[in-house]
Every structure is written in C-alpha cells, then in structure tokens.
C-alpha cells in the first residue's frame, strides 16, 4: 500500500497556507510532493508531462485550500486531485500521443532514489509497468498500490466495475507475460500436497 494516506499535515500549517503564508505552502509541498509526483509518474510516465501535472496539482491545491473542509485525510484529498488531473491528461488526445514519443527514454528511466542495492526485479518491473497501456497501468497502480476499490476506479473512468476488473486482469496478464514470457507452457497439473 502506498504511504500517501499516512502523511499528516498539521492543521496550523493548512491555516497558514490558506492565509497565504509561503513557508506553510512550502511545507505542504515538502510533505506531499514525492508521493504526488510518484503517483503521477506511475500514471502518465512521461517525466516532462508529470512535472507539468505536479505543478498544476499543487497550484490548484494551494489556491483552493478553502475547499478542503477537514472531512477525511488531507493527503487523501490531495491524492484525489492528483489522480483526477492525471486521468484527465490521459483522456486528452492532444497530450496522449506524447506518451509514445520518447518510449525508449522511458524504458531506461529509473526512480531517482533507486538504491544501488535494489533487487534486479525492480528494473524489470519498472520496464514492464511502463510498457502497459496507460489505462491498464493506471488501474493496476490505483488498485494494487493505492488501494482504490473497483467501484471507485469505475467512477473515475466513467465505466463499470466490470471494466475495472477486466483492465486489472489484463494488466496482470501483460505484466506476467513481460516478466515471464515462458508462462504460456504451464500445464494444469495437480499441486504437490504437503500432507
């Protein structure tokens, strides 16, 4: 599960930001920019677009703080706006084509804080994830990592729960194919019993 919803922003900081205090605004950015940027990068992939969306999200959040009335977690509210912005981008055909322009660069890109000792599968999974179609990738990330329910995803996409389930299944099938191309040869044989 992502740690998005664990992030707490003190009420005093929110009040300061609402009053236009630059330090309070910066504190909100510091607390939430990494999970927001990571979420956007997972959905839209392309770094330049993700950076633009990151700016849009924070400009919107900081200009519309009065709309957050303390119902539910602040980080959850921020996450909803980030998801909405990223999905709106994915729905825009004049931007969507950009996703495919620098695919090779994307495949080589790694998270900035990948440590040297990171497991080999990190890189393989990164590449496989980036190769998924945008909708399937978004749904697998929202469901498996961010913990969104199928009903919530269906609403975000203006589709049915069945659509969300199908896309998630498709994403996993593609991921498995990309990570283990030989899986197609498995046969239905009885599993060994422990007893």
């Amino acid at each position: 599960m992502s740690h998005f919803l664990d992030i707490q922003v003190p009420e005093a900081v929110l009040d300061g930001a609402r009053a236009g205090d630059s330090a309070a605004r910066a504190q909100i950015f510091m607390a939430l920019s990494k999970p927001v940027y990571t979420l956007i990068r997972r959905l839209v992939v392309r770094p330049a677009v993700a950076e633009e969306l990151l700016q849009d999200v924070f400009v919107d959040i900081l200009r519309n703080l009065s709309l957050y009335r303390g119902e539910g977690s602040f980080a959850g509210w921020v996450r909803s706006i980030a998801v909405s912005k990223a999905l709106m981008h994915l729905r825009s055909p004049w931007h969507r084509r950009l996703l495919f322009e620098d695919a090779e660069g994307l495949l080589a890109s790694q998270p900035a804080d990948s440590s040297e000792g990171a497991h080999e599968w990190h890189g393989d999974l990164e590449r496989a994830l980036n190769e998924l179609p945008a909708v399937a990738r978004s749904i697998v990330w929202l469901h498996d990592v961010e913990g969104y329910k199928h009903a919530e995803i269906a609403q975000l996409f203006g589709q049915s729960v069945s659509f969300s389930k199908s896309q998630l299944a498709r994403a996993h099938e593609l991921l498995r194919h990309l990570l283990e191309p030989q899986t197609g040869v498995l046969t239905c044989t009885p599993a060994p019993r422990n007893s």
Partner: protein
Amino acid sequence: MHAGTKELIDLRDGAPVAARVIRHSAECERCSTALTHLAQTQLQLRQLAGFQPPQRAWLAIEQRLQQPQPMPARAVGAGLAATLIGAALLSMLLWSSGQWRTPQPAGSGATPAVDTVPLLVARSQQIEALLRGLPRPAVERAATSAAIDELQTRIQVLDVQLSSAQEAGLDRTEAQQLWTMRVQLLNSLLSVRYAEQTAHGDFLPVIATGDI
C-alpha cells in the same frame, strides 16, 4: 476448468469467489502459481521506489501562485466563458446551500422516482467524447485558456466529490445533482471550446448540446 485472472485477483484480495475456484486453485499447479505470482507482483509494485520531484518544481509553483489568476475579460469567447462559469458556480452554490434540492412529495422518501444518474453519466461521456474530438489550436489565448482551466478544475472538484460519494454517504438525489452539475460544466466547457475554435476560424460541426 482453470480459474480466470479476475477470479484469482478476487481470491488474492479476499473478495467473494466461488467455492470451486478456491478448491481448484488449491489443487491446480498452474492456478496456484498464477495466484502466487499475482500476490508477488502486488507486493513488488508496492515496494518500487518513489520518484523524487525535480528541485525546480517548487520555484515554478511559487511563481505561478504569485501571478494573479487571469481574468477572462478580453479574449474572444471569454465573456461567454465567464457567464457560463458564473451559472455553473451559482448552481454549485445553490446545491451546497441546499436551496437547489428538489422538494420531495410527502411520503415519497428521499429517493427520486426515476434514477437519471445513468443518463447523466452517459451524457457526460458523450460530451467528453465531443471534447476529445475538438482539436486544440496551436496558439491559445491566455484568457480562454484560463477559462478552460477554471472549468476543468471545477469538473475535477466534482469528480473528487463523486469518487468519494459512497464514503460521504451521498444519497441518490445528491449524486444526481452532482452529476447534473457535471453535465452543465461539461456543456460550458464545450461551449468555450467551440468559441475558441470559432475565434480561430476553424470549421465546426453543428452538434446539439441540449441538457437531459
């Protein structure tokens, strides 16, 4: 018969699945391997490192925050946009103050007789499809762009409300009102985009945009 990926994901997530799927997955090597792989993949996805945002991002955000929010006054289509946004905001205000809620006849309960949400969702999708089909001009007027941005932000705020409708305990009437506002905002956005296109002299098809 093997379990499908959807069934295996439900099994992994602890969602209700048929007893035969549980039995089969325990006995079939292929299905139990697939189930293990699904669980491993989810774990590994959660363990992927995060991305550090570019350092320049906060500077750019601060600069944008210091700029006054552009007023759609001069550009072609901006007047229309302001009117439409005003109408949309008024609707939102009325809704949030409760004045717009349709009084229910005594004894009828809070649930409307006809559920128009599916129609409104379909209408939203239609308008979104129309919007997707409209090309963006190479050069965009700042005021029109700001109006479009404003409308998109309002739609996003509504989307947030709609996505958390269950948690917020919204009933069908309230959900219907939110969807009605969404359709109105999308109609407004479509009108602004048409105005934008007209200002650039582009040919536009005549499309009915009437409300439900």
